[in-house]
């Protein structure tokens, strides 16, 4: 039901959002490579931040894997806001990332809504299949060659989804406040 163009478009939209929102500084390098179907397996102690973008014909779960115990990860994300807990900062960043995906998808699907983030154990990952996704892809995200995150796109559709996103190559780093 989800055509190849749509899958490719969603992937490109996510890449753009991740590169602009998951990095704390505009100059930070963000490398995204495809991982196995359950990307969290490479991060066994990881937790997941789950966000959902719902439309009339589909729902898209954006899942970000992170290791809360990894000091480099913690330092990278809280360096500017040391007084705030890591999880609060990271949830906000994930929310911004999903918000960017949502904003881009709004160009093609006028009726969309986005959930607030929620944290789960990475042990939940194998059960994504229970949602009967039509598009499930995991990625390894590396920031500045040191910070390792995982990401999974899980899209369930009950109607044909076909669109081609025109995602600009220029990274949009302007901030958009996504409240949650």
């Amino acid at each position, binding site marked *: 039901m989800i055509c190849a163009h749509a899958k490719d478009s969603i992937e490109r939209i996510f890449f753009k959002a991740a590169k602009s929102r998951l990095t704390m500084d505009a100059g930070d390098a963000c490398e995204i490579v495809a991982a196995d179907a359950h990307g969290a397996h490479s991060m066994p102690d990881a937790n997941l931040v*789950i*966000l*959902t*973008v*719902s*439309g*009339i014909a589909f*729902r898209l*779960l954006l899942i970000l894997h992170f290791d809360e115990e990894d000091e480099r990860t913690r330092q990278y994300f809280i360096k500017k806001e040391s007084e705030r807990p890591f999880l609060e900062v990271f949830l906000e960043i994930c929310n911004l990332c999903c918000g960017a995906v949502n904003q881009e998808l709004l160009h093609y699907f006028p*009726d*969309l*809504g*986005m*959930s*607030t983030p*929620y944290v*789960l*154990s990475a*042990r*939940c990952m194998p*059960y*994504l299949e*229970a*949602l009967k996704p039509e598009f499930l892809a995991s990625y390894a995200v590396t920031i500045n060659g040191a910070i390792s995150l995982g990401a999974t796109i899980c899209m369930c559709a009950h109607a044909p989804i076909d669109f081609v996103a025109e995602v600009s190559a220029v990274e949009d780093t302007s901030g958009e406040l996504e409240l949650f």
Partner: protein
Amino acid sequence: MIQQYLLGALAGVVVTAFAALAAHRLASVKAMGRLRSGADRQVETLTRANAAQSELIALHEQEKQDLDAAIAQLCEDLQQQSDSADEVRSELKAAVEGKDQLAHKAAQLAAEAARLKALASTFERWHEQMISLMTQNQDMHAKNRELSSIVRHVVIVSLNASIEAARAGTAGRGFAVVASEVRALAARSEELSKSYRDSLHRNDLTTTATFQDIQAGGKMITASLSSVESLANQFQSTLH
């Protein structure tokens, strides 16, 4: 002599009288002729004038008839235009009433959309239930971890019991059977605990995905209703 003179005079008078009469008659005839000729000319002139006048009268009559016909046509046109104006007036009145009704409907639509936006709180309430469910799940995770810990302990105890039973030799044979049975039960409990843990993780994911879908769907509906409300308000302002 005198008589002759008198007769001669008389005859002269008579001749003169006749001559005068003849001259008079001649003059009269000539004058009559001239008069008749003049009268004929005048009659002819008058006849021509009369004919011209008659033509003019006929022309004027024709023009009058044309004017009467034009006036009748104009009257008819005026009546038709008057009827059309009445129709247009009534249509305009109906259109104005229709516009008022549309404005009223647009206002109702905007109010209804604004009212339905309160559904967002319903969706949020459902989402809050997720937090409650997930808290219960976390509690079950903790209890299961405790159960798993107990089971692991039982396995160790049963192993120790088996060792002690072996040391006791023949006397401990019965105890060894019991220890083995306890270990088997502990292994089954461990399997059950793992299965329960997996079910809880599956439940965590399904619950989260479902309630996030409800929350996001609620926001989608609220945004759509805001759009409807805005359009209805714009439509209403256009009508006023």
